């Protein structure tokens, strides 16, 4: 427990500690998937975006994270995990990251440079065809 009275969430811990292995697995799956259905030019950027999303946003926005909990309370569980959302636009993601929203503070261009934010936005708005087992969304959220 902490001065805030909350235990660290073991689900989140699991997500974060297992990210490298999971990323490796998903990268392999992504390559296999791309080979199976013909290479999509955006796939490398989606994969890079997933990696950056986990590194920069994973503190709060994976399963069990504080951002996920807050979004579940405000918008409902089905819209809590950013990786599973299909209603976000790149412009919205970039703007909210820079100005913050509700409890989420803004992120400056040193901690998340514009190039990385572009990749995060590409990943979170990836097409449905990249959201299969080869796309990584489901695994990314609950590795």
């Amino acid at each position, binding site marked *: *427990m*902490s*001065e*805030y*009275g*909350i*235990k*660290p*969430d*073991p689900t*989140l*811990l*699991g997500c*974060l*500690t297992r*990210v*490298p292995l999971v990323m490796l697995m998903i990268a392999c799956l992504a390559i296999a998937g791309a080979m199976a259905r013909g290479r999509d030019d955006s796939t490398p950027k989606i994969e890079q975006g997933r990696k950056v999303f986990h590194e920069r946003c994973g*503190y*709060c926005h994976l399963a*069990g*994270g*504080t951002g996920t*909990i*807050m979004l579940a*309370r405000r918008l409902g569980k089905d819209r809590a995990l950013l990786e599973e959302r299909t209603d976000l636009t790149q412009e919205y993601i970039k703007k909210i990251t*820079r*100005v*913050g929203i*509700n*409890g989420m*503070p*803004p*992120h*400056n*261009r*040193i*901690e998340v*440079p514009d190039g990385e934010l572009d990749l995060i936005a590409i990943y979170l708005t990836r097409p449905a065809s990249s959201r299969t087992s080869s796309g990584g969304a489901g695994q990314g959220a609950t590795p």
Partner: protein
Amino acid sequence: MKLVLPPRVSEATFQKALSAFTGVVGKEWVLATDEDRETFMDYYAAGDADLHVPSAAIGPQSTEEVQAILRIANEHKIPLWPISRGKNLGYGAAAPCMSGTVVLDLSRMKKIIDVNERFGYCVIEPGVGFFDLFHYLQENKIKLWMSIPANAWGSVVGNALERGYGYTPYGENTRNICGLEVVLPNGDLVRTGNGAMAKSASWNLFKYGFGPSWDQIFCQSNYGVVTKMGMWLMPEPEATLGLNIQLPNPDDVGWAIDELAPLRMKGVIEQSPSIGNSLRFVASRTQRSEWYTGDGALPDEVLVDILKKNNLGWWTINLRLYGYDEVNEAHARIIKEAFAKHTKQEFEVLKWHRGEPIDNSGAGVPATVALQIINWRGGRGGHIGFSPILPATSEHVLRQFHATKKRYEEIGVDYYGSFTLFERYTTNVNMMVYDRDDKAMTAKVRALFKVLIADAAKQGYSEYRTHISYMDDVALSFDFNNHALLRLNETLKDALDPNGILAPGKQGIWPRALRSERA
């Protein structure tokens, strides 16, 4: 946010300095648009973010770049506000004390330079976050445990320099510092302690060096930019034993402190138990409007009803024993016997042994879920904490608890307090949670904060750490011999930083040229 120039600096000089900074770090890492300035402001401020507006931010990647930046800042008299990762939430986050100051953001300097398992230490740069170091230890199967604060988004170095704390036996983070590398305001580079010997075999083993010991001089100060820190880490214990208990009455905190403090001092308890009023539990999981919609502080009868419905006591105590199983069991018996004199409440017992998953072991495990509390009032939440140090006795704790709660009620803020117990003192964190867009509420919070500083000072209680808006007030409460310590601090400041470029106003320490800025 429009540009606010630093005092003493013309726009032409400012632009010239930015060009020179760009020459050092590259265009990508000098940020000076209106939107950039907003991203370094105090997002959780209680209505006073406009008092602390940065003019720009620079992101160096190496010690050499930091040195070059400080030399340029001296040349143009540009004030700099070093931050490690800028997550000092509730204390000003990344924002500078004085408007117009340029933020020196060290978050790109994130090398884990050394981890020594045999001697239990690491050497890291300021951009290394708690998550980064935790993952490094886990992935490399290094059996060292970290001490981690409630919100672990921030920097290991920054937190230790600000004297933050965690909840393991190594919980007093500043105490674990052993050897710093520091860029002085004039750009010179020093290593403290035994690191002052170029080939030292014990820089991160022996804290004091030869002659004056400087590590603590660079904590909560504005005398240098720390670019490397040696920090002791705790060897993984053989086992842990957790004891949690709910105490039903407000005054139970008195006897609990009297029973626990001697055990903490004797080493029966080696970590710092947290005794928190149960509103913190409720605030992290629900919103106030679910329980009460009235103005003013949450009434006692409503709180009692909330606690009853959640099966909570007025206070929750969490403590943890670390070490050999037999010793933990013996210490647990001593603690239980001490409590049995006062209550029939039973402890919840949590056991962990080496090799089991560490999720519930009492190891420092980073998380950010603590931030849930800012949702308590709804809207765009924020929080700030008033945290005086008290002698660990019931007399002091009960007096301060009742006086503080009364002030919260008079001004109309929900009381939310905790006592973290160290060997001889307790840190009394009083949290204020608010809706940042409710101007009446944030005005109340600012008024309450000032009253609490004054009340505490009358009792001889001082804060261990404070928000950037209150640094002058707290510094001035240290009034022995007409503020002799402040005179000493500012004498040192003027000697080390004659141009007054480094973090003016930090901890109430102002350089000669800017003392008129003191609040």
